[in-house]
C-alpha cells in the first residue's frame, strides 16, 4: 500500500512538472517585446523595452527562463494581475473563497442527487422514471451552462424578481464597507463570515444569492454522476451474487441497497476527477453570468485582457487540484476495493 501511494505521488509530481513546462511553453510563444510590454505602464516607458528585455533576461534560452520563473513561483511571486490591480498571488486568495463557497454547497447536492437518481433509474430500468431521468440527463448534458444561467436570470431575476446577480445586496455590501471595524473577513466566504460575525442578515442574503448559481450548476453537472451510477447498478444487478441473493429469498431492498448499490458506487468514485474538472469549467460560466467575482470570473476577465500571468496561475492551481483529487481518489479506491489494495 505504501509503495503504491509513493508511486502515485512520484507520478503526480511528474504531472505537475509537465504542466508547468507546458504552460511556460505557451507563455514563451509571446515575443520578448510583448512580454516586456507587461512591465510598461506609461507610453514614455515604451522606449525602455530593449532595456527591460536585457534586465529581466527575456531573450535567454528557454530552460534558463524556466528555472528563473519556477524559482519566483515557488517564492510566491506569480506576477501582476491587471483585472485585480494587485499581485496575482494576493488576488488569488481574494477570489478563491467565492468559488470555494459555491462548490462547497453544490458538491454534496451533485453527489447525492446523482447517486440517488442514478440508482432509482437503474433499479427501475425502462420504467417511466428511468426514461424521464434519462431525458433529463441528456438535456442537462446538452445545455450550455452560460445559456442556462442566462435564462434562469431572465426568468427569476427579470420576471419574478426573486433573485439577483452578484454575491451580496448593495445595501449590505455598503454596510460592510462603511463599518470595517464591525466585520472581519475570517474565511472570505460570506455565508460563513456572516455567521461568525453574528450578522445573520449577511449570511442569509449571501445564501439567497447562491440559489441560482447552485441550481444552474447542479442541473448541468449531475448528469455525469447519474449516468455512471445507472449503468453501474444495471451491471451489478445482472451478476450472479444478485441471483444468489434472490434465490435465497433476500428481499428486494436488501439486494438493491445493501448489495448492488455498494458495488455500483465504485465506478462513481473513479469519475470524481472528471467531476472536479467539470465543476471547474462550470464555475467559469456560472460566475461570469451571475457576476460573482470568483476564480472563474477572474479567469474570463483576464483572458479577455490577454493577461497571461493570471491564466498561468489558475492553470497551475487547477493542475494541483486535479493532482490532489486523483491522489485522493486512488487512495480511496484502494481502500474501498480490496482487489487493488491486496495486489
Amino acid at each position, binding site marked *: 500500500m505504501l509503495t503504491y501511494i509513493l508511486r502515485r505521488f512520484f*507520478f503526480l509530481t*511528474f*504531472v*505537475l512538472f*509537465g*504542466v508547468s513546462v*507546458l*504552460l511556460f511553453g*505557451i*507563455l514563451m*510563444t*509571446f515575443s520578448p517585446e510583448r512580454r516586456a510590454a507587461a512591465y510598461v505602464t506609461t507610453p514614455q516607458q515604451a522606449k525602455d523595452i530593449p532595456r527591460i528585455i536585457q534586465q529581466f533576461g527575456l531573450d535567454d534560452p528557454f530552460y534558463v527562463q524556466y528555472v528563473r520563473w519556477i524559482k519566483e513561483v515557488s517564492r510566491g511571486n506569480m506576477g501582476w494581475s491587471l483585472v485585480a490591480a494587485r499581485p496575482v498571488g494576493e488576488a488569488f486568495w481574494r477570489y478563491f473563497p467565492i468559488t470555494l463557497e459555491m462548490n462547497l454547497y453544490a458538491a454534496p447536492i451533485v453527489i447525492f442527487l446523482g447517486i440517488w437518481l442514478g440508482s432509482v433509474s437503474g433499479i427501475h430500468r425502462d420504467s417511466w422514471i428511468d426514461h424521464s431521468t434519462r431525458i433529463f440527463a*441528456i*438535456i442537462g*448534458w*446538452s*445545455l*450550455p*451552462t*452560460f*445559456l442556462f444561467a*442566462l*435564462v434562469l*436570470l*431572465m426568468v427569476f*431575476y*427579470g*420576471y419574478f*424578481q426573486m433573485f439577483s446577480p452578484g454575491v451580496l445586496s448593495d445595501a449590505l455590501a455598503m454596510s460592510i464597507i462603511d463599518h470595517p471595524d464591525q466585520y472581519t473577513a475570517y474565511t472570505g466566504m460570506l455565508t460563513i463570515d456572516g455567521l461568525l460575525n453574528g450578522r445573520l442578515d449577511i449570511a442569509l442574503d449571501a445564501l439567497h444569492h447562491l440559489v441560482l448559481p447552485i441550481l444552474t450548476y447542479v442541473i448541468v453537472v449531475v448528469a455525469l454522476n447519474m449516468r455512471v451510477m445507472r449503468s453501474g447498478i444495471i451491471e451489478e444487478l445482472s451478476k450472479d451474487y444478485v441471483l444468489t441473493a434472490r434465490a435465497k429469498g433476500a428481499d428486494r431492498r436488501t439486494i438493491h441497497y445493501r448489495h448492488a448499490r455498494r458495488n455500483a458506487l465504485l465506478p462513481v468514485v473513479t469519475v470524481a476527477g472528471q467531476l472536479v*474538472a*467539470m465543476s*471547474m*469549467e462550470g464555475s*467559469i*460560466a456560472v460566475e*461570469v453570468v451571475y457576476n460573482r467575482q470568483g476564480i472563474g470570473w477572474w*479567469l*474570463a476577465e483576464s*483572458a*479577455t485582457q*490577454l*493577461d*497571461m500571468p493570471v*491564466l*498561468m496561475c*489558475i*492553470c497551475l492551481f*487547477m*493542475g494541483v487540484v*486535479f*493532482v490532489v483529487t486523483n491522489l485522493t481518489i486512488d487512495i480511496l479506491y484502494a481502500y474501498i476495493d480490496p482487489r487493488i489494495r491486496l495486489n
Partner: protein
Amino acid sequence: MDNTHPRLRELKYTLYRIFRNPSAIIGFTLLVFFIGVAVLAPVLAPPKYAHNPYQMPHKGFSPTPKPPSEKAIFGTTSGQYDIYYGVVWGTRTAFKIGLFVVVISGLFGVGLGAVSGYYGGWLDEALMRVTDIMWAIPTLVLAMAIVVAFGRGLDKVMIALALIQWRWYVRVIRSEILTLRDQDFVQAARVMGVSDFKIIRRHILPNAIYPVLIMASMDMGSMVITASFMSFVGLGSPKGYADWGQMVALARNYIVGPPDDPLRFWYTIAIPGACIILFVLAWNLIGDALRDAFDPKLRRR
C-alpha cells in the same frame, strides 16, 4: 440476405438497431434539418456582403433590439443585427467549428493512439505521459490559455480546441487496441505475414472504431458549446459575426427588459440559444443511440 458480405450484414443490423431507438430518430431529424439550413444558407438568407457572407447585415446602430416584424422575422438584436440572418449563417459556423475540431483531433488522436497502442514500447510510454500532463487542465481553461497566447478569433479558438481534444481520442482508441492486439485473429494475421500497417487498418481499426464514433458525435456538440462560450466572453468571433455564441453575447445586456415588461427582449436570447441547444441535443441523442447500438452487452438479446 445471407450471401452478402458479413460486414455489410452487420452494418445493416446496426442501422436497424439505431433506427429502432426513438432518440436516434429525433436526433437524426434535427441533424438533417440543421444540415439543410447550413447547405441552403445562401438561398434562405442571401448575403449582403458577397465577399464575407458571415458578416451579419445591420440597419442602423441603435443598441435597443427590435421585436420580430415583417422586415426581420426573428427581430433584430443589439446593434440592429438581423437575428434570422445570424441564425441561418450561424448554423454553418457551428458545423465549421464542430467538423474542424472533431476531424482534426479525431484523425490525429486515432492515428497516434493506434500506432502507439499497437507497438507499445517507449513511444507509447512517452505519448501516455504527454496525455497525462494534458489531462490535468480542464479543456476550457487550457483553450483559454492557448487563445490568449495566439490572439483572439474564432479560428484561434478552433485551433486551440483541436490542439487539446485529441487526448480523448488517443485514450479511447488505445484502450480498445490493447484488448484487440493479443486476440487470436490478430495473431493469426501476424503469423500469416500480414504487414503491421495492414493489420491495423484492416483488422484492428474496424473493430475499435465504434467508441471513437460515439465520442466524435458527443464532441460535435460539446465543442460547439465550448466555442460559443468563448465567443460569449469575447475571445472568439468578433462582433457582428454570424455565430450563435456571439449573438448571445450581444443580447447579454438585454436579458432583463424595462420594469413594466421584463421579458420584452426574449427573442434576442431565446432564438440563438435554442439553436445551440437543439444542435448539441441532436448530436448527443445520436451519440446516445450509437452507444446503445454498439454496446456488445446489449447488442443481441
